[in-house]
Structures are given as structure tokens and as C-alpha cells.
């Protein structure tokens, strides 16, 4: 018990002393990012056009934009899974080349291994990095406790509800104590109530370890409630249309309550005014294409 608690506490104290803003290596600078794909027909399709924005260390940045505007593509290049056609992504001043160190990803779809137990799934990060088994197990158990899943260690993912699976994914993403957390519509598939609960929990955990977060969502309320900065992207080919700083005080507490604050409503309206035009244009294009 004693040894388990030691391991459990070390990450929190470690990051607290390091200080959130001091971690210069967690700054993301995206400049002139362009991505082109070759379509099966042999044509060049520009998915992203000259995207530039910066996410400060420890900042929570939400990215909103019409579907298909290249949000996921952008994140793929931040994590190093994909290469830009032009421009660059710098993390902590160093250009991304290969998988970015200290990054965790959360997807909309489940990325849990169905053949591993809940514990086994959370263990993956430490195991891949060569952390000794005992230590890895202790910290996995601790993270499962933190996301409220103590006692579910031996279940398989298919035995859990959608919300519980998200919590496992969250523990699996955070156990490596990433300096950067990339989330691609992580709660998009959840029902409204579960989503609100998960968002609040995410905020609590984020405030504890303060990684830099890039959070894609199509839910404007979610973006404003969670983020320090909201990047609005244009319809395809995606570029940055506007950047909003969200000055709602922290800690924000429950995501459901903040919706009723006048400042929240004001910001939400401003952003929606900017976004609506793009969404309508994207919609007209797909609807036109289908007709």
C-alpha cells in the first residue's frame, strides 16, 4: 500500500514543481502548414492551406471548423504520424520529425485494444517506454482510480459502457504524463449527459498535470466551456479564419453550469457568427455534390 501511494503521488508533485507555464518544450507552433493529397483519380487535393497558429505551453486550445476542413489532418502532423507538404510544425522550438515525443492522442473512435483488459490497456504507454512492470502496474492502477474506474481493472473493453471506455482511454493517454495532449473529437460519440460529465472530469485532470491540449470538436459549447483559445477554421481547403481568447476564469468547475454565464453566451455568439458562414458553405458544397 505504502509503495503504491508513493508512486501515485510522484507525478502530481513532479509537475507541480515544474510549473505549467515554465515548460517551454510544450509550445506548439504551426506555421504555413499546407497538406495536399493525391486523389485516386490522380488529381491533387489541397486539404489544408497555409495554416498558422500557436498553442502556448499548458494552454487548452480548441479547434472548430466545418467537417472535412482538415482538423484531423492538422493533428496528424502535430503528432508526427503524418508529414506536411509545406510549412512546419514545431514543438518546443524543434521541428516535428517522426513521432513527437511526449504526445498522447485520444480519438473519437475507440483506440483501446479489445484483447487487453482495462489494466492492460492503461499499461501500454509505460510498457512501450520500458517502465519496470511493477511500477507501471502501480501507476496504471492509480490512474484508473483517478478516472473513477477502480475495481474494473480486469474487465475487457466490450464489457464497459461508452463513457467508461472513454475514461480508460483518458487514463491510457494521461499515464505517460504527456506534455501535449491531442484530442480528436474525443467525446463526439457520447450522449449529452455523459459528454458533460467527461468534459468536467477532463478539466479536473488537465488542471492537475497541465499538458498543452489541442482539442478538436464540432460542439461550440464544449469548445468555449473548456478552452483558453478557440481556433476557427474555414471550410475546405482549411485555413485559420479567426482565433478567440476565452477569458472565462479558472477553475471553471462544471461544464454544464458555465453555459449560463453571460460572458460564455457572448463569446459563444461571437464564435458562432464567424463559424456559421463556413459551415453553411461546407454544407452547400457537400449537398450540391450529392445532388
Amino acid at each position: 500500500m505504502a509503495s503504491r501511494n508513493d508512486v501515485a503521488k510522484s507525478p502530481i508533485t513532479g509537475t507541480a514543481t515544474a510549473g505549467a507555464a515554465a515548460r517551454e518544450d510544450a509550445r506548439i507552433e504551426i506555421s504555413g502548414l499546407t497538406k495536399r493529397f493525391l486523389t485516386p483519380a490522380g488529381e491533387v487535393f489541397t486539404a489544408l492551406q497555409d495554416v498558422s497558429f500557436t498553442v502556448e505551453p499548458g494552454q487548452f486550445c480548441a479547434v472548430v471548423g466545418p467537417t472535412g476542413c482538415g482538423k484531423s489532418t492538422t493533428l496528424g502532423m502535430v503528432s508526427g504520424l503524418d508529414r506536411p507538404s509545406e510549412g512546419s510544425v514545431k514543438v518546443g522550438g524543434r521541428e516535428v520529425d517522426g513521432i513527437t515525443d511526449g504526445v498522447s492522442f485520444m480519438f473519437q473512435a475507440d483506440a483501446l485494444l479489445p484483447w487487453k483488459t482495462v489494466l492492460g490497456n492503461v499499461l501500454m504507454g509505460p510498457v512501450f517506454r520500458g517502465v519496470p512492470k511493477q511500477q507501471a502496474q502501480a501507476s496504471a492502477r492509480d490512474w484508473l482510480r483517478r478516472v473513477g474506474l477502480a475495481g474494473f481493472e480486469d474487465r475487457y473493453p466490450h464489457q464497459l459502457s461508452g463513457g467508461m471506455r472513454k475514461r480508460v482511454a483518458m487514463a491510457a493517454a494521461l499515464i505517460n504524463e504527456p506534455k501535449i495532449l491531442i484530442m480528436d473529437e474525443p467525446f463526439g460519440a457520447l450522449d449529452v449527459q455523459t459528454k458533460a460529465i467527461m468534459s468536467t472530469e477532463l478539466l479536473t485532470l488537465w488542471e492537475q498535470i497541465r499538458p498543452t491540449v489541442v482539442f478538436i470538436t464540432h460542439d461550440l459549447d464544449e469548445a468555449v466551456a473548456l478552452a483558453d483559445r478557440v481556433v476557427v477554421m474555414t471550410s475546405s481547403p482549411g485555413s485559420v479564419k479567426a482565433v478567440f481568447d476565452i477569458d472565462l476564469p479558472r477553475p471553471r468547475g462544471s461544464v454544464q453550469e458555465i453555459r449560463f454565464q453571460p460572458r460564455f453566451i457572448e463569446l459563444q455568439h461571437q464564435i458562432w457568427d464567424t463559424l456559421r458562414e463556413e459551415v453553411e458553405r461546407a454544407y452547400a458544397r457537400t449537398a450540391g455534390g450529392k445532388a
Partner: protein
Amino acid sequence: MSTTSTVSPAPAGNGAQASVETDARRKVRKRVTAMWTGRIVLGILVVGGWQAFTALGIVDKFFFGQPTGIVTRLIDLFQHGTEQGSYYADIWTTLQEALIGFAIGTVTGVVVGVALGQSRFLSDVLGPYIKIVNAIPRIVLGSIFMIAFGIGTLPKVLLAAVLVFFIVFFNAFQGVREVDRNILANAKVLGASELQIVRHVTVPSALTWIIASLHSAFGFAIVGALVGEVLGAQHGLGLVIKTSMDNFDPNGVFATMFVVAVIVMGAEWLIGKLEHRLLAWRPPSPSEVNSL
């Protein structure tokens, strides 16, 4: 229905539920009874018909055997053995060849399948050749192996291994190709090396496919061993079949066929057990859930 509601003092809702349950259970029992009746009747019809037709002389038992004759021959084989010695020794020889061939074919099939599934370059280079080899009637390779390695157990093991290899290989290859892209991306971002991805993601994911292939693969291992023995051997069930054939003894062929069937069914059962253990993580299939 009325009995349940009078016996239980529970509210009406519970009574209704209980009657639904007994109703459903009765239906299931009825279905199971009908199924077993059907099975037994069919079995009796086929075996009894065979016996009757040969006994009445409509079908010549000299060519087509006779169930009672097969049973007698089977007992005789086990008690007195064959020309080349104990029947158990023949069974053991064939079983051994099939098992070793099965093991070699499975291991190489999995290794090559995973390697090719993993590497775009390798699969591009080897793809056409594998298609060509797959198009060859591989059973004919038995003759080549006999020429090259004589009439010992080696050519039988090799033939069994070749037959098994292709089945397992194609399934392993396909299984690797079907790995979920999100899971792969996630493992990469978490810092997995190539080897760790193979071990933690690719192989477990392909396992469903690989194990599915093992069911038919063991049957092919036995076929490989038997064909090899028919082509030329000093021991084994294939030799027993061949000798029976040469002696115009259809009952001997059928008796040995029966033994082979029992072996394959035993292996099938073991593979089923293995499947159950290795794939314990899988959600139960809908039919399993629904069956009362």
C-alpha cells in the same frame, strides 16, 4: 399459466413474467427434442439403409462394405493389427506426421503471413509468386518429396506442412491487413517500437483469423500425411488404406476412415478449447447471448 399466478403471491407483473419464462423454456425444450430426434432418425436411416441394402443384395457389400462388417474389421484391426504390425503403431505414425507437419506449417504460416502483412515491400515482391504457388495443386508435391526424401516420415511431414502453411499464411496475412488504423496510430503515438506493435497489436489482432484457419488446417495436415503414406510408406493409416484397397477390402478402408474422422474431431475439439482460451476477450456472439 394460471398455475404460476395462483402459486406465487407476487404481483400480476411478476406472474406474467414467470409465465413468459416457462413458455420460452418449453419452446426451447421442444426445439431441442425435435433436433435430437431428427439427428438420430437420420443416422439410423443412413446406417440402417446401408446395412439393409447390402444385406438384401441390392448393393454389393463386396464393393461397398457393410456397417456390421466395418465394426468387425475395426475390432479385428485393433486386436490383431495389420500386416506391418500393431494398428496403434500405424495410428501413431500418421498422427505424428500430421502433428509435426501441422506445427511446422502453422509456425511458418504465421511468421511469413505477419511479416508480409507488415511490410508493403515484401508483399509486393513475393505476392505474384505466392499466387502462382497457391495455384499449383500442392498435393502433387507429395511425389516430389517422395523422390527427394524416400519413403520415411519426412516427406509426409513436409506435405502436411505445405498444405497447412498456405491456409494459415493467407489468414495471418489478411488478419494483419485488417488491423484497426486508430489502434495502430495510438500505439505509435504512445511510443511503441515496430516489434512492440507486432507483439501487442498486430499478432493479437490477427489471432482471430489465424485460429479460424487452424480448424481446417488440421484436416489438411491429416490429408497430407495420408496421401504421403498412400504414395509409399512402411507404416501409417494411409498404408492400411492402400493395403485394404489392394486386397479388395472396403470394410478396412471404411474402418480406417472412421478412425481418421475420430482423430480429426478430437483435434477440432482441442483447437476449439484453445480458441476459447486465447479469444476469451471477445464479446459473446449474439446467438450465445440469446440462447436460453
